[in-house]
C-alpha cells in the first residue's frame, strides 16, 4: 500500500465522500425521477390523443349531421331538388368537396359539387358506385339495422369525383345512401393548428394503416403504411400500448385511442429519453449539481486539510528535534484540537522519562565497557547473527592488529578481517547459527587466524550468546592468543620427525634395540628392511636370535659379550640371514647410547657379500690379461697385411675399368664422327658421279658436234655441282675440326677459354647418333656468351655421361621425352649448369647411392657402375665444382652442377693421370 500524506489523504477523503454521496444520491434521483418523467410524458400523450379524438369526433359529427339532414330529405324528392340541397350543403367546398345520393343499384342519382365544378355534375350523374367500399358498407348496415343505421365513415380512398384522396361519410336512407366526401387536406389543416411547437405530435391513421392526418407534416411520413406499426396494431386490437415505438432509429413514447365513431386510429408520440426536454433537463440538473459540488469540495478540501495539518506538522517537527537529541526546546502552544494537545503533553513527559533512563543505562554501560576495554590479552568481540561486528575491545586491536574503527560495523562475510578465507567466515557464521538455535556456548576451540600484517595467529576461542536488542542475540567471542605455545609444540614435533626421516633415509641398514629388554628391536630403518627382506612390524619386539638373523648364533654371543665388556670392536664381520633365507656377509658396527634414561643399541649392518666377490674376481683377471693382449696383437697384424693386398687389387681393377669407360666414350665419339661425316661426303660422292656422267655426255657431243645450248647447260651444271661439292666438303672439314677439338680436349685435359654453349653443342653433335635411335629430343638452352676458363674435355665427358645415362635409364620403353641443358648467368664467379630430363626418374632408395663406384642397376647388362662416379670425381676434383641430384620418381631427374667460371689450377701430373 502506498504511503499517503495526511493532507492528500484528507483531500481524497473529502472528494471521495462528496463524489460517492452525490453519485449515490444522483443515481437515486435519476433512477426514481426519470421513469416518473417518462410515465408523466406517456400520460400526457394519452391525454392528448383522447383530446384529439374528441376534437375529431366533434368535427366529424358536424359533417355527419349535415349528411344526416340530407338523408332525411331524400325521400320523395326529385333529383333536381336533391341536387339543389346537395349543392347547398357543399357550398364552396370549404368543408365537403362533394355530396351525392346513390341509388340502391349504385348509380349516382344526385350530385352536389362546389360552385367551381358544377359543370362536372352532369358528367358524373349515372356513374356506378356500387363497387365503392363505403357504399357497400352503408348498404350492409342499412340491411342489418333498418332506419336506425349509423353513419359510416370510410377509410382514406381515391375519389372518382374529385380524383383526390378523401374520406367519406355515408348515411343510408331507405334503399339509398347519401355520401359526403371530405378532402383530406381539411382534416390535415385541423390538426396542423394543434399545439404547434410541442415535442409531441398527433397522427391519424385509417384502419388500413394509411395516413390520414397529422399535427406535424412530415413529407415521407404521409406515405408510410402504418399497418405494421405495433402501436397501431395494439390500438386496433384494444391491447395495452407498447412502451416505446422505434421509428427511423429514434425511440418514441406513444399514446393513442381508437376514435369512437370513425374507427380511425389516433396516436400521439413524443421522443423518449434524452429526446425529451424534461428528461434531459433532469439529467442536466443532476450532473450539474454533481459537478458543482465536486468543484466546491476540490476548492475547500485543500484549505481544510492545511488547517488540520499545521499543528501536526509543528508536533512532528518538535519530535524530530527530540530524536536528534534536543530535549530542551519548548513544545508547541496549545491549539484548537484537544487530542493534539494531549499528545503534546504526553510526548513532553515521555521525553523526560527517556532522559532519566538514558542516564542510568549510560552509567551501567560505561562500567561494562571499562571492564572489557581494560582486559589484557583476552580479545573480546561482539557479533550479530549476520556476522556484523558490534564491539571490538582493545585486546582485539592488540592481538589482531585491526583497530576498532576498522572492525566495528564490518560484516565478516563481506570483509574477511582476521579470517583467512570465505570458508572460515561461513563456518563461523554457521557456528553463530548453531549457538542461536541450541543456546549452548561453542568452544573453547583453537582457530588459526591472520593478523592485519598477514602473519598467522592461533587463538583459543569461546563463543556464546548474550541478549541483544529485542529478540535478537549478540554473540560474544573471547579469544586468547596461543600462537607461541603452538609454535613451541610444533617445533618439537618437527625435530623428532626430521630425525626419524634421517634415520629412515640412511642408506645403511640400521636397527635400534633395547638393551634392557634383551636387545629386542625397537625400530629398524627402510634400508634394513630392504637389505634383510623383513618388515619392521614383523621384527619389532623380537631380538636377533628370535627372528633368526644370525647364521651363526655364536657371532651374536661374541658381539654382545664385547658390548657388555665395553670393548666394542670397530667393525666386525659376520654372516647374517635375510628373510628369504639368503646368506649375506655383513660388516657390523654397534654402539650403545643412552637417551632419556633408555639404553639403546644402535647397530649398522652393511652387506659386503658382493663387494667381497668382485674383489676376488679382479684379482683373478689381473693375472690373465697380459697373455690375451699379446695374442690379439698377432691376429691384428695378420689381418692388416691381408687388407693392404686387397686394396691394391681393387685399385688395379678400378684403373682398368676407368680405361674401359674411356674406350667406350671414344667409341661413341668415333660413331658420332662417322655418322656426321656420312652426309656431306655422301652428297659429294653423288654430285661427283653426276658430274662425271655429264662430263661423258658433253665429251660425246664434242665428237658429234656440240651445240651452244648443250655447252651452256653443261657449264651451268658444272657451276652448280662445284658449289654443292664445295659446300659439302667444307661442312665435312668443319666437322672434322670439331671432332678433333673434342678428341684433343678429351685426350689431353687441355686448359683453355671456351664458350659454354658451344661446348654443349659439341656434346649434342657427338651424341646425335645415339639420340637419333631414341625418341628423345635434346635441347641446348644455354645462353650464348658464357665464357669459361678451364677444361672443356672433362666437362663434355661429364655431359656425355649424363646424356648417356638418361638415354639408357630414363626413357626405356617410352615413345617420347626430352632432355634439357640450361645454364644461368655467372653469379660471383660461379655458373650453375642444370641438366634435366622428364623420364622415369630415380627411385628414392637409389638416389643416395648413384655416385658410389660400381653401383649399377644394370649389372650384367653392360653397366659398369662407374659413369656417375667418374662424373662426381671430375666435377668435384678437376673442375672444382659441386654436383647435386634430385629426382621425383616417375617425373624426371635433375642434376645441378655448380662450376667456378675459372677452374682451379692443378698440377700437371694429375692431368697426365
Amino acid at each position, binding site marked *: 500500500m502506498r504511503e499517503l500524506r495526511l493532507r492528500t489523504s484528507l483531500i481524497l477523503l473529502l472528494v471521495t465522500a462528496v463524489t460517492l454521496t452525490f453519485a449515490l444520491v444522483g443515481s437515486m434521483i435519476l433512477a426514481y425521477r426519470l421513469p416518473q418523467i417518462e410515465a408523466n410524458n406517456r400520460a400526457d400523450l394519452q391525454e392528448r390523443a383522447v383530446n384529439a379524438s374528441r376534437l375529431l369526433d366533434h368535427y366529424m359529427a358536424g359533417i355527419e349531421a349535415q349528411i344526416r339532414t340530407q338523408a332525411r330529405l331524400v325521400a320523395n324528392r326529385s333529383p333536381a331538388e336533391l341536387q339543389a340541397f346537395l349543392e347547398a350543403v357543399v357550398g364552396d367546398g370549404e368543408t365537403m368537396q362533394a355530396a351525392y345520393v346513390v341509388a340502391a343499384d349504385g348509380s349516382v342519382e344526385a350530385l352536389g359539387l362546389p360552385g367551381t365544378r358544377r359543370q362536372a355534375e352532369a358528367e358524373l350523374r349515372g356513374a*356506378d*358506385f356500387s*363497387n*365503392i*367500399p363505403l357504399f357497400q358498407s352503408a348498404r350492409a348496415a342499412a340491411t342489418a339495422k333498418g332506419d336506425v343505421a349509423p353513419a359510416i365513415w370510410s377509410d382514406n380512398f381515391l375519389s*372518382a369525383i374529385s*380524383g383526390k384522396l378523401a374520406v367519406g361519410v355515408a348515411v343510408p336512407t331507405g334503399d339509398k345512401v347519401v355520401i359526403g366526401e371530405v378532402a383530406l387536406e381539411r382534416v390535415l389543416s385541423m390538426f396542423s393548428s394543434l399545439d404547434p411547437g410541442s415535442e409531441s405530435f398527433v397522427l391519424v391513421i385509417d384502419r388500413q394503416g394509411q395516413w390520414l392526418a397529422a399535427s406535424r407534416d412530415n413529407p415521407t411520413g404521409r*406515405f408510410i403504411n402504418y*399497418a405494421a406499426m405495433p402501436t397501431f396494431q395494439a390500438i386496433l386490437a384494444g391491447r395495452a400500448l407498447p412502451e416505446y415505438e422505434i421509428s427511423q432509429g429514434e425511440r418514441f413514447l406513444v399514446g393513442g385511442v381508437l376514435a369512437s365513431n370513425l374507427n380511425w386510429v389516433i396516436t400521439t408520440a413524443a421522443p423518449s429519453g434524452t429526446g425529451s426536454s424534461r428528461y434531459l433537463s433532469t439529467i442536466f440538473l443532476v450532473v450539474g449539481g454533481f459537478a458543482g459540488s465536486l468543484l466546491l469540495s476540490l476548492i475547500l478540501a485543500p484549505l481544510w486539510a492545511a488547517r488540520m495539518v499545521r499543528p501536526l506538522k509543528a508536533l512532528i517537527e518538535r519530535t524530530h528535534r527530540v530524536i536528534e537529541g534536543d530535549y530542551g526546546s519548548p513544545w508547541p502552544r496549545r491549539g484548537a484540537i484537544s487530542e493534539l494537545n494531549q499528545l503534546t503533553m504526553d510526548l513532553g513527559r515521555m521525553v523526560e522519562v527517556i532522559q532519566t533512563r538514558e542516564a542510568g543505562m549510560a552509567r551501567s554501560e560505561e562500567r561494562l565497557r571499562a571492564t572489557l576495554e581494560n582486559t589484557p590479552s583476552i580479545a573480546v568481540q561482539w557479533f550479530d547473527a549476520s556476522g556484523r561486528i558490534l564491539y571490538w575491545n582493545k585486546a582485539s586491536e592488540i592481538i589482531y592488529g585491526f583497530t576498532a574503527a576498522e572492525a566495528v560495523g564490518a560484516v565478516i562475510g563481506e570483509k574477511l578481517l582476521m579470517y583467512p578465507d570465505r570458508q572460515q567466515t561461513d563456518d563461523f557464521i554457521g557456528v553463530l547459527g548453531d549457538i542461536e538455535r541450541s543456546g549452548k556456548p561453542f568452544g573453547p576451540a583453537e582457530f588459526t587466524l591472520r593478523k592485519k600484517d598477514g602473519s598467522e595467529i592461533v587463538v583459543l576461542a569461546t563463543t556464546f550468546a548474550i541478549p541483544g536488542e529485542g529478540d535478537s542475540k549478540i554473540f560474544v567471542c573471547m579469544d586468547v592468543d596461543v600462537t607461541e605455545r603452538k609454535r613451541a609444540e610444533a617445533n618439537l614435533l618437527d625435530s623428532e620427525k626430521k630425525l626419524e626421516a634421517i634415520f629412515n633415509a640412511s642408506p645403511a641398514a640400521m636397527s635400534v634395540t633395547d638393551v634392557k629388554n634383551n636387545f629386542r628391536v625397537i625400530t629398524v630403518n627402510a634400508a634394513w628392511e630392504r637389505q634383510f627382506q623383513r618388515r619392521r612390524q614383523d621384527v619389532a619386539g623380537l631380538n636377533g636370535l628370535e627372528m633368526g638373523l644370525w647364521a651363526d648364533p655364536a657371532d651374536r654371543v661374541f658381539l654382545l659379550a664385547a658390548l657388555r665388556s665395553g670393548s666394542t670392536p670397530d667393525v666386525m664381520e659376520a654372516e647374517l640371514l635375510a628373510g628369504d633365507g639368503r646368506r649375506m656377509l655383513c660388516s657390523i658396527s654397534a654402539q650403545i647410547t643412552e637417551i632419556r634414561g633408555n639404553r639403546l643399541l644402535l647397530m649398522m649392518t652393511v652387506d659386503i657379500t658382493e663387494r667381497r666377490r668382485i674383489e676376488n674376481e679382479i684379482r683373478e683377471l689381473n693375472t690373465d690379461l697380459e697373455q690375451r693382449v699379446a695374442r690379439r696383437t698377432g691376429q691384428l697384424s695378420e689381418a692388416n697385411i691381408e687388407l693392404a693386398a686387397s686394396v691394391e687389387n681393387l685399385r688395379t681393377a678400378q684403373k682398368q675399368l676407368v680405361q674401359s669407360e674411356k674406350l667406350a666414350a671414344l667409341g661413341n665419339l668415333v660413331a658420332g664422327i662417322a655418322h656426321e661425316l656420312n652426309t656431306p661426303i655422301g652428297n659429294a660422292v653423288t654430285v661427283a658421279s653426276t658430274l662425271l656422267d655429264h662430263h661423258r655426255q658433253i665429251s660425246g657431243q664434242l665428237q658429234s658436234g656440240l651445240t651452244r645450248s648443250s655447252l651452256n647447260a653443261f657449264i651451268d651444271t658444272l657451276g652448280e655441282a662445284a658449289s654443292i661439292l664445295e659446300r659439302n666438303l667444307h661442312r665435312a672439314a668443319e666437322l672434322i675440326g670439331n671432332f678433333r677439338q673434342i678428341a684433343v680436349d678429351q685426350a689431353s685435359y687441355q686448359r683453355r677459354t671456351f664458350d659454354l654453349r658451344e661446348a654443349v653443342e659439341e656434346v649434342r653433335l657427338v651424341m646425335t647418333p645415339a639420340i637419333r635411335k631414341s625418341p628423345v629430343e635434346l635441347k641446348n638452352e644455354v645462353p650464348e656468351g658464357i665464357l669459361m676458363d678451364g677444361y672443356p674435355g672433362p666437362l663434355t665427358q661429364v655431359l656425355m655421361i649424363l646424356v648417356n645415362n638418361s638415354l639408357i635409364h630414363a626413357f626405356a620403353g617410352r615413345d617420347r621425352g626430352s632432355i634439357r641443358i640450361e645454364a644461368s648467368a655467372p653469379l660471383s664467379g660461379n655458373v650453375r649448369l642444370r641438366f634435366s630430363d622428364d623420364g622415369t626418374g630415380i627411385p628414392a632408395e637409389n638416389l643416395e647411392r648413384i655416385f658410389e663406384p660400381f653401383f649399377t642397376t644394370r649389372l650384367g647388362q653392360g653397366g659398369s657402375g662407374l659413369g656417375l662416379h667418374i662424373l662426381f670425381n671430375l666435377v668435384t676434383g678437376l673442375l672444382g665444382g659441386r654436383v647435386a641430384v634430385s629426382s621425383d620418381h616417375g617425373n624426371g631427374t635433375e642434376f645441378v652442377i655448380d662450376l667456378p667460371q675459372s677452374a682451379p689450377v692443378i698440377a700437371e701430373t694429375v692431368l697426365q693421370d
Partner: protein
Amino acid sequence: MKVYSRFFGLALLLALAACSPPEPLKLGFLGGLSGRVADLGEAGRNGTLLAVEEANTAGGVNRRKIELLIYDDEQQAAAAVKATEALIAARVEAIIGPMTSSMGDAILPVATRAGMVVVSPTVTASSLSGKDDILFKVAPSVETSTRLSAAFEYARGVRRAAIVNDLSNRAYTADWAGHFRRDFTALGGEVVAEASFTSGDDASYTEAITKIAKAKPDLLHLVANAVDTVRLTQLARNLGLTLPVTTSTWAATEHLIQLGGRTVEGVTLTQFFNRDDASPRYRAFSTAYTARFKQEPGFASVAAYDATRSILTALAKAGKGQPLKEALLTAGPYEGLQDRWNFDRYGDAQRQTHISVVRNGRLVLVE
C-alpha cells in the same frame, strides 16, 4: 489511488458500450401518392414495401438492413425533381419509381448527373426505351402493348378508332397514341379522331368526348389513368356513345373496377399482369399483400415488387466496387412473381403482355 482509477475506467467503459449496428442500406421510392394517380403510386409503394420488409425479415442484404425512403412526386415535374434531389442527398443506393413516364422524363437528367440508378416498375414510354441510360424499366415497352392492342381491336372488327389522351402524362400518352395509330393503321384500320384532355380539368373532358363523337368512330381508345378512364367512359355513355372502349395499361389498376363499377364493364386493356395467376409463388405474394394492405395487389404492385427484388438481388451479387448499373445488367435473369425475366442491354425488361377485359366486375384475361 488504484481504486479511483478503476472507477474512472469503469465509467469510460460504460460510455463506450453504446456501439452501433451496421449502417442500413437505403432505397428510395418515388411515385404519385396524392392526386388522381395515387392508385398507381400506392400500389407501387406497397409492392416495394412488401419486398423490403420480406428482405429485412430474411436478414437484409449482406446482413445490412434496408431502409425505404418514400417520396411523393405529385405527378408534377418540379415536385419529382425535388424529391429525387432529396433522395440523392440521402445517399440511397437506387430509386424505385417513378410510376409514370412523364415523371421519368422529368427526373432522368437529375438522376443521370448524380449517377443514381432508377428502376421504374411502370414506366413504359418508348422514348425512354432502347437507350443505354441510367433508367431501368421493369414493364414491357409501349410498343409491345400497342401492337397487341391494335391487333386485338382490328381482329374483332374495329376499323374507325378515336384516341383520347391525357396531356398531364404526355410522355406516355403521346407515345402510346402515336404507336397505336401506327400499328392500327398498318393493319388497315383508321384513326378517325384524336383529342386530348388535362387530368383534373373538368371542362377538357367534355370537350374531348364531344370532339371525337363527331367523327363517328367505332372504337374509343383512351390513354388515361384509371380515374379518368372511368370519368371519360361515364361521360361517353352519358352522351349516348355505345361504342366499345379500350384503355391503356396505365389504367389497369384495382381502382378501375372499384370506381367504375358497371360503367367500365366490357372495357378492354393491355397488361403484362395476370390477376388469376394460380402459381404458388404468386398466391403466396397475393395472400401476404392482402393481409398487409387489406386490398388485392395490382400490376403496379407486382411490377414494383419485381423491381425491388431485382435491385436487392443485384446488390447482393455485386462485387466490391462494381457499379449497381452493371450489376443489374449482369445479375439476371430474375425470378419475377409471375415469370422469369431479364433486362436487355438497354435496361428494358422483355416480358409477356396480355389483353384483359372487364367482365362481371373483374379483369379477365382474354388473350
